[in-house]
Structures are given as C-alpha cells and as structure tokens.
C-alpha cells in the first residue's frame, strides 16, 4: 500500500532542490490541505482513496521534510502523530479496541477530506461565475431614485402681524419720557427769587419765595436752589440779606440804594 510513486509524481518536477521544496511546502494551507493534495495524487475518486496509503504518504513526506531540515509548523507534526496513531490502530488486531474505532476515525478523516475538497471546488465554481462588475454590469449611470423632502413652510397671518408687532414694540423709537425728577433748577430759582424780591421793600423770609405748596423732595430742592439764587442775586447787588444769628430765619429784600450788596446785611 505504501505507494512512493504518488510522492514521486507530486514532487518529481521540483526535485532535487530543497529550496523548491520549501516553497511548495509553504503553499499548503495546513496539514489537511497537504493531506488532500496527497489524496488527490492517488488519482482515484476521493471516496475510493486508501486512508492507509495516505497516512504512509503523509508520514513519508514529513520524514522527507525533516531530512531536509525544513522548519515544520507544529500542526503538521501533530497531524503526523495522530496519523501514526491511526495507522497503528488500523493495523492492530480488531479485538479490544476503544471507541471510536480506528475505522470510524478513518471514515471521519475521509469525510473531512471530502468536505474540504467540496468547499474548495465550490469556491472555485463560485469565483468563476458571471460576477457583477467583472462579467456582467449594472447600469453605468443610473439616474437614481430619490425621495426629496420638501419643506412646506407654514405660517398664519396672525403669526405674521404678531411678529411685526413684536418688531415694532421692540424697536419703537422709544420716547423715553424721562420722568422728571422733582427739582427746581438754579436758573428757575434765580428768575423766581429775582422777580419776587423786586416787588417787596420789606424784609421777607426766604421760605416765602418758594412756590406754593411745594414739599418733600421738590421742597428741599426749591429751598436749596432759592438759597443759592439768593446768594447770586446778592452778589449781583440786587438784594439784601439779613439773618439774626446761626440757624435763624433768613430775610431778603430788594437792594436799597446806598446800602449795596450782601455786606449790608444787618448783623
């Protein structure tokens, strides 16, 4: 059964160079692939193949590889060990054998090889089909189908005029009617005091020059302004001032000819 001829078939053209062997060795995808290649070299239907012969070939191949000091991947060696076990089991007397039987193991190996072969063929047939983009082609410049979203803008007339109202309300030239603070300005006081004092010859209290009924903040402002107005008018020589003492009431009268100014104020 140990059929060295198959090995020769397989490697004849590439011998004897060890390097060539290396290259071809690397082209296998694992021990099962190597087994399958060896099995096919038996040139019989995969279903008819002799497992025992295959085991011999594999072991011979591994031995040969080792002899040429090839670095063998571990899984090739594991497979070799397992096949060596299978071979011895197959050759042993049938009597007391463990489960599963070596025949069953051989059958499974058989099935695995068939399965791998089937998938390899299937892959090749698949790849050779009329493939889209290689053998058959879709339309080169399809117009494309598309659904465009079109915004339908919605707004009511109320929205529109309310928006305008808001713009107007927000940006109206705001006539900031600055709430006038309650003050009597100095100019007003000068005018008022000057006017009123001219009509009086007698001493008159400063307070009586204030407008009627003013009180609170405006009252204090009027008093302060009138006081400054009084000083100003006295400086201009238009009125005389008299005060009896500190914090006493202040009296004014229009300036008397000859007396002249504030210093005429009575002591």
């Amino acid at each position, binding site marked *: 059964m140990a059929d060295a001829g198959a090995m020769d078939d397989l490697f004849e053209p590439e011998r004897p160079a060890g390097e060539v062997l290396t290259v071809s060795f690397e082209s296998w995808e694992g021990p099962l692939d190597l087994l399958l290649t060896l099995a096919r070299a038996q040139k019989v239907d995969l279903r008819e193949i002799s497992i025992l012969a295959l085991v011999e070939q594999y072991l011979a191949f591994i031995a040969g590889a080792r002899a040429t000091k090839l670095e063998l991947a571990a899984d090739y060696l594991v497979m070799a060990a397992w096949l060596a076990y299978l071979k011895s089991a197959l050759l042993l007397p049938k009597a007391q054998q463990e489960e599963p039987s070596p025949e069953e193991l051989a059958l499974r190996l058989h099935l695995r090889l068939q399965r791998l072969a089937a998938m390899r063929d299937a892959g090749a*047939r698949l790849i*050779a*089909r*009329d493939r889209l983009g290689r*053998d058959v*082609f*879709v*339309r*080169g*410049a399809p*117009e*494309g*189908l*598309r*659904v*465009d*979203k*079109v*915004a*339908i*803008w*919605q*707004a*009511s*007339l109320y*929205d*529109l*005029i*309310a*928006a*305008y*109202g*808001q*713009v*107007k*309300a*927000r*940006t*109206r*030239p*705001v*006539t*900031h009617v*600055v709430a006038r603070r309650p003050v009597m300005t100095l100019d007003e006081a000068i005018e008022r005091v000057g006017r009123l004092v001219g009509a009086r010859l007698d001493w008159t209290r400063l307070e009586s020059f204030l407008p009627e009924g003013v009180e609170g903040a405006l009252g204090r402002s009027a008093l302060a302004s009138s006081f400054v107005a009084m000083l100003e008018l006295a400086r201009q020589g238009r009125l005389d001032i008299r005060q009896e003492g500190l914090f006493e009431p202040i009296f004014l009268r229009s300036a008397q000819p000859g007396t002249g100014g504030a210093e005429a104020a009575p002591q």
Partner: protein
Amino acid sequence: MTGGESEGPDERKSREGRGGEPDDLLRALEAALFASTEPLTIAQLRQILGEAPDLPDALRRLAGDYAGRGINLVERGGRWHFQTAPDMAWLLRRDREEPRRLSRAGMETLAIIAYHEPVSRAEIEAIRGVQVAKGTIDVLMEAGWIRPAGRREVPGRPLIYATTPEFLTHFGLGSRRDLPGIEDLRAAGLLDPIDLVLEGLSGQSVTESSLENGEGGD
C-alpha cells in the same frame, strides 16, 4: 470562464440563429450603452464593438425598439445613451412634503419685508434691531414668499426684497394694503411691549447701530 447557468457556447449559437430577436450587434450596443457611465459617440461605440458599418442604422433600430418602453435610447449632440422615459420622470424624484414652521426670525423678517417692501437686508436689520442670518432670507425665498426685486441704487447696490403673489395667497391677503396698520396693531395689543424685557433686552446680537438708535431716542 463565465460559468453561470444560462450562457455558454450553446446559448451563443442559439442566439445568433434566432429570428425576431435582436441580433448580436443590437445586443452588444444595448449592453455597451447600458453599462457606460457616460453617453457614447458612434466613434466610441466602434472602439468597443469593433468595425460595424451599419452602426448608425443599428442605433436607430435600437432606439425604435425602445420607443414605447419605460426606457428610451436617445441621442444628444451625437452621443447616445439610455434614459428613463420622460413621462416616467415623476417616478425618479418623489417629493415628500414636510410641514415646517417658520422660525421667529423668519417670521419677523417676512413681516418687515411685507410692511416695508422693497427693503434691503441692511434695512431689515435696522428695523429688526437684530442681524438677519443669510439662511433666513433663503428660507423665505424657498417658501416662495419673497423674491429679489432689484437693487437699491445706493453705495454697494444691495439687493432689495419684496413679497410674491404666493405670499398674498398663502396669507389670504388681497393685496399688501390688507395688512393691518400700526394703529390696528396697537389696538389689538400687538404693540404692547410686554415682551420687551424678555426678548429685546435679553440682547442676542443686538447690533451696535440699533443700540445707538435706542439711546438716541431719549
């Protein structure tokens, strides 16, 4: 190598023998025009198909084959291509309508254009007191409510905008004169500055000029 289910030498032979079916040249033309990413001239077709003296005739026959179909073979400026039949164009672009509400900025801008048209963007900004984003004008144009209405003859010649008839239709207005006047707005309480503190003064991007104007008012 093209190991599909239906081709092969037999198929090819039977095809050539067929009577009423398109001949090889027509089939090749069809395939080449279909697969091409651009319209093809007769010279280009010859490069693909090889010498074929009756190419113009074949193209016309092929165009005839497709005349009544959902796909037509057409010539444009000496270039041939397949296209979907014009009356089927509606299939290709389906518009799905989506109601959208106008933003507040959009609403205000539209209102200003309606009340003051024609106005430039700068003028709208001056009235709004807030800058107007480019997109806002675009949306109003897309909605079909405003249109460019020439240019203002001032430095920079800015575009000016006005409303469209669609605007009047959408808002149910006979003419712009039907817009309520300022006094109507005041009477309706739409000028109440209730929101003033809330919005105007919250101060998003109030432009310099509008701030100055505001201060100048008192």
